[in-house]
């Protein structure tokens, strides 16, 4: 075509404009199958789930008539002691998990930012769990936290309990995932909370869950920070060192502020992963003793597929979605605006 236009000397404009016109529609047309499928499967389905949450579908037989009054199921949901415990658990877990994962991830990244032998090996080890499924992780850690055969036995065999005995302390034998204890109760501090049925404290069984999740995902935080550290130019470090800053000072006062965008990304991604947690807990402990490790993800699954309370399961899943959207939508909106 280029050759022929040269020969005739005439501009190819008319032809090209027709060409362009068809291409103008070709772009959206080629996207259409993917986009329509995805939008149906995401927005259409969310809309349907929301409808189910407002409906009378309370058994195995489908009933999509709307309930009267329409928000009944949400009122019921938030009054259920179990769901209150779920919200408590997910908040406690998210805070603990974020704190530990970010601190360990950043710490490991800074260590691996130094020059020493065997660095690739360490990086390899710390990121390894990320490649495994939550089910594998859950199965392994369930064994480790089994009070009879796991860590407790190892502590006993290593003589830890004998050492504790010298100091007049009892043997260290936590129940881990089997421990129903909830420490503290916010209801006694905040008068507005006394209408809640679940004890608003820290469920101890959530700690082993957090440890397993940290094991799996701290490598991700480390990799994000390492990538961030890699983008900081050598000159910045040199300038800090020339100014007489110690290594600690340099990291605290120069590098850490520069890593803020990485921290924001890590926090947002990990928060949304944490709010959605399901597989890991399902494999480790399920709902736990007295719902000590129950979370919305498990609640939805059990209400929908075990109890066939479709309305209740749908409502809880919408609550999950709203929680995730609070974190993700601003992040996404900002990213897309920057395009």
């Amino acid at each position, binding site marked *: 075509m280029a050759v022929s236009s040269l020969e005739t000397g005439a501009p190819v404009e008319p032809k090209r404009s027709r060409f362009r016109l068809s291409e103008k529609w070709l772009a959206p047309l080629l996207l259409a199958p993917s986009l329509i499928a995805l939008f149906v499967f995401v927005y259409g389905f969310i809309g349907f789930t929301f409808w189910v949450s407002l409906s009378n579908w309370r058994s195995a037989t489908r009933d999509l008539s709307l309930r009267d009054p329409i928000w009944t199921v949400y009122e019921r949901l938030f009054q259920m002691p179990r769901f209150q415990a779920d919200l408590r658990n997910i908040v406690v877990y998210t805070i603990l998990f974020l704190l530990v994962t970010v601190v360990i991830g950043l710490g490991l990244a800074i260590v691996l930012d130094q020059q020493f032998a065997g660095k690739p090996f360490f990086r390899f080890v710390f990121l390894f769990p990320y490649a495994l499924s939550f089910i594998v992780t859950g199965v392994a850690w369930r064994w480790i936290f089994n009070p009879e055969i796991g860590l407790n036995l190892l502590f006993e065999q290593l003589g830890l309990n004998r050492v504790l005995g010298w100091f007049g302390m009892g043997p260290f034998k936590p129940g881990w995932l089997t421990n129903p204890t909830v420490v503290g109760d916010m209801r006694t501090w905040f008068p507005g909370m006394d209408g809640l049925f679940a004890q608003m404290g820290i469920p101890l069984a959530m700690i082993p869950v957090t440890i397993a999740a940290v094991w799996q995902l701290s490598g991700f935080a480390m990799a994000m920070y390492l990538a961030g550290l890699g983008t900081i130019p050598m000159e910045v470090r040199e300038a800090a060192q020339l100014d007489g800053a110690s290594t600690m000072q340099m990291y605290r006062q120069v590098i850490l502020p520069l890593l803020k965008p990485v921290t924001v990304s890590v926090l947002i991604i990990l928060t949304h992963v944490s709010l959605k947690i399901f597989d890991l807990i399902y494999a480790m402990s399920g709902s736990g003793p007295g719902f000590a490790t129950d979370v919305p993800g498990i609640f939805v699954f059990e209400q929908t597929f075990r109890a066939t309370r479709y309305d209740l399961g749908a409502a809880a899943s919408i609550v999950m979605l709203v929680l995730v959207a609070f974190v993700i939508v601003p992040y996404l909106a900002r990213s897309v605006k920057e*395009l």
Partner: protein
Amino acid sequence: MATSLPIEPAPRRPRLGSVKRIIGFGLLFLIVIFYLMPLYVMIVTGLKEAAEVTGSTMWRIPTSLSGGGFGEAWRRLSPNLITSIKLVIPATILSALLGSLNGYIFSKWQFRGSNLLFGLLLFGMFIPYQSILIPMLQVLRWLGIYGTLPGLILVHVIYGLPITTLIFRNYYANIPSELVEAARIDGAGMLELYRRIMLPLSIPAFVVVGIFQATNIWNDFLFGLTIITNPNDQPITIALNNLAGSFSVAWNVVMAGAVLAALPTALVYIFLGRYFIRGMLAGSMKG
């Protein structure tokens, strides 16, 4: 006035003092033990005979090398391993191909509103899948593919679109537009351009997306659990969870099963770690 020579220190990475270094290495050593412990537990327990997985010998290494629980785990889980392979390969290839085409259009053929559509598409990878399960299962039933592998493949392809599109879009955005313009002046159409110029340049992106998606789909639990009802047809993660949940199965078999379920993604990580990390950072998400 100081008259020192203007010799600047050679650029070097920061180093810690020697005492701190020893403490640091001690800590690092403990952390490495923490990271390796579950792997040790899985492999060592899996290699033991049932008789050794009791009481005081729990943490010891196996006394014989007979394969321990692996034989039994393989016998129970091999159908599910094959299901997972049959699921991962087509689902990964399809979602990568579609993601590549979408990414190409979103990066090189932007139109009015395309960025908004892209944003709406991306939201799909963050949603908790619990919030779409009920209608999804209804639609699969209506299509006649509920409980079947094609149904599960379809679901993985569709929900894989956001992440594959994102990785390809970012990859193509770095391919100079001049290259596209030059080919356009030669009269190449949109699809020809894609086939002749973009696809041949996309091999690294396909490797990254392929590894990322294959790992994600292999490790999925919720979709496999809700879509496939027949235990023999369920993917490996669901089968492993069932195995771990049945009280009649000894721990050595469960742990051997966990190793079997972990092995494919672990091998990918060991041999293709570089691409694995790239996909992880590009996607910046899990779950």
